[in-house]
């Protein structure tokens, strides 16, 4: 089974500039492993060194955050769309960062 995965703009440089990719898999984990198998440079942006999905990477199955489903074991169907959604946060009031 194949599902469509929506790629956010910062990660398209690793997917040959494609904004979405169709990938095989029965679960979110299988889909993401196949995706990062095809585009290996994506891996370090989605997974930490211990092989877990990074905390600032959110995966949605259609409108649902997989953290509220069965996380990476969440089952996907042919009609589902998976979206990789970056966490966006920030703010002031800590030491300013050296810039170059």
């Amino acid at each position, binding site marked *: 089974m194949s599902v469509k995965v*929506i790629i956010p703009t910062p990660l398209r440089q690793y997917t040959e500039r494609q904004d979405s990719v169709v990938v095989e898999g029965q679960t979110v984990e299988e889909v993401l492993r196949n995706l990062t198998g095809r585009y290996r440079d994506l891996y370090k942006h989605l997974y930490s060194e211990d092989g877990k999905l990074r905390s600032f990477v959110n995966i949605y199955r259609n409108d649902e955050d997989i953290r509220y489903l069965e996380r990476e074991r969440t089952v996907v169907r042919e009609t589902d769309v998976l979206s990789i959604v970056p*966490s*966006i946060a*920030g703010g002031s009031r800590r*030491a*300013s960062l050296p*810039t170059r």
Partner: protein
Amino acid sequence: MAIELQRHQIEQIQQDGKQTYPNECCGVLLGKEQEGRKVVLEILPLQNARDDSPRNRFLILPEDLLHSDREARRRGMDIVGFYHSHPDHPARPSEYDREHAWPWYTYIILAVGNGLPGEMTAWLLSDDRGSFFPEEMRIADRRSEKEAASTPNSESTGSST
């Protein structure tokens, strides 16, 4: 890569920073990548989801970002970056900004001092995520763009307005 905004978009960000003071404002920059630069076509202010610490933190909920991205795609645009304000603090990225940033996106920071908009800067995260560096910010007004399709008529501002 440089980012190009229209003057009224700059004013929209300044207005958001002013109205939200003393809290941080935040929003999305919608646009397109064209000829090696990001062109902002629309500013989309969003709710700062950090109810616990809105004066020195901002958070855009993933579901808000998901819906913004869908709307942008539907209209032929992309999310090219984000803006937020630093109330009573310089327009320079903090360590907290860096820890939560992504490469490629433009991060615009507006300093708001005593409720008045001040310096505005644009930043890019390095690919190794280790540091921010300034991104050139250009201002183009709509009138000059229409008048000069073949002759770009934009003024470069460096990283500040």
